[in-house]
């Protein structure tokens, strides 16, 4: 599951998804299960490839990535 990026809120996750899409990176919004390195109540983006590039793009666009769900 290290291709699941944790984001601070559902709004931030959707914004991140839209930004990645504009760079040609597809992702899927989903709730992150508890116990994967954090407690519950967060949303993430499942990204199949280019995850490092995705993180870099989000950082450049001032989207806070909380980490990867492990």
């Amino acid at each position, binding site marked *: 599951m290290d291709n699941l990026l944790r984001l*601070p*809120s*559902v*709004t*931030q996750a*959707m*914004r991140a998804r*839209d930004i990645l899409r504009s760079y040609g990176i597809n992702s899927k*919004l*989903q*709730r992150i299960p508890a116990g994967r390195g*954090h*407690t*519950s*109540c*967060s*949303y993430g983006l499942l990204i199949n490839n280019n995850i490092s590039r995705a993180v870099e793009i989000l950082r450049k666009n001032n989207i*806070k990535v909380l980490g990867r769900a492990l």
Partner: protein
Amino acid sequence: MIYLDNGATTFPKPQSVINSVNLALRNYGANPGRGGHKLAIKASEKVYETRKSLAEFFKISDPSNVIFTHNCTEALNFVIKGLVKSGDHIVISSLEHNAVSRPVEKLKSRNVSYTVAEVIEGDNEQTLSNFRNAIRENTKLLVCTYASNVFGIKVPVERICAMCHQYGILTCVDAAQASGIIPIDLSDSSIDYLCVAGHKGLYAPMGTGALIINCETIPDSLVEGGTGSNSQNLVQPEILPDKFESGTPNFSGIIGLKSGIDFVNRRGLLNIYHHEINLIKHAYNSLKSMKNVKLYTDEPNMNYYAPVLSFNIEGKDSETVSDILSTRYNIATRAGLHCAPLAHKSLGTFDIGTVRVVPSVFTTNNDINSLINAVYRINTNP
């Protein structure tokens, strides 16, 4: 009924708004931003679509800076009470609604002071000078209406806000009567906080509004609670929009707001403004020719006025005239002080109030002709 009380809320709502609310309640009425099931995600997507629509409508780049509120008043309270501290000073205009004047009055008990700057109709230079003279060393915030909800007078908010920035003062604009009628572009603006009503010019259901943050200074939250995010932490999240959106949102209203914005975009903002100001001009010029009918502004035009008209019939109080218009002529207007005592004091109508006429995109020339005929009859047949 001929409905000319659109300053309070627009009615009727577009069929597309009604349809979307209906669809939302029937098909995807789950709680957005909470669960992870398909319906919750779908609801979250819909809310985000509205957020993006509002961001695009007012031309800000980050939809996260669009905060849904229950009305414009709540948005104004978030800004005013979330920013100022003991010892701070606020400048407001002489045309403010109680949505602004009551919060700032309340803050006097917390050692916050405020000054009312007089708006001079038709003299933007003098108005600007009055605002400049109202600024003090400890002025933290300017709060100003975009246009009077009673007299339609537009305040030169961009110039005032730009001037305030020169003094390091944050700026907040009440766009309750302007949004959806007058173009507002925050991409090139000195407005830091724009407070919007959803249920007026944006044709959404009542219970919708927004605070749009266009600067880096984020007010403190006034309401804390569940946001669906970072739940393990007892401290309210700082991230936007969650910081200001505790508790279950008005989901169906927000869905209706998206449809309302789409409706306004389809019709064209300037087309709507042009249509409504022409109706107001027509009413103004006809009423002006009637003996005993008192008007309070110059002839409205798009440069200086929002489509709002106030009048009185000499010898009759505004409530009586509005009541006769309703009961005898089936015309809905709004009488009294319109929750804006400062504006009425400013134009000398505090003791009598006015009858207010506000059209919508659905108002026709025939509707205004009916109003004119009714006022003529009330005036000539006591």
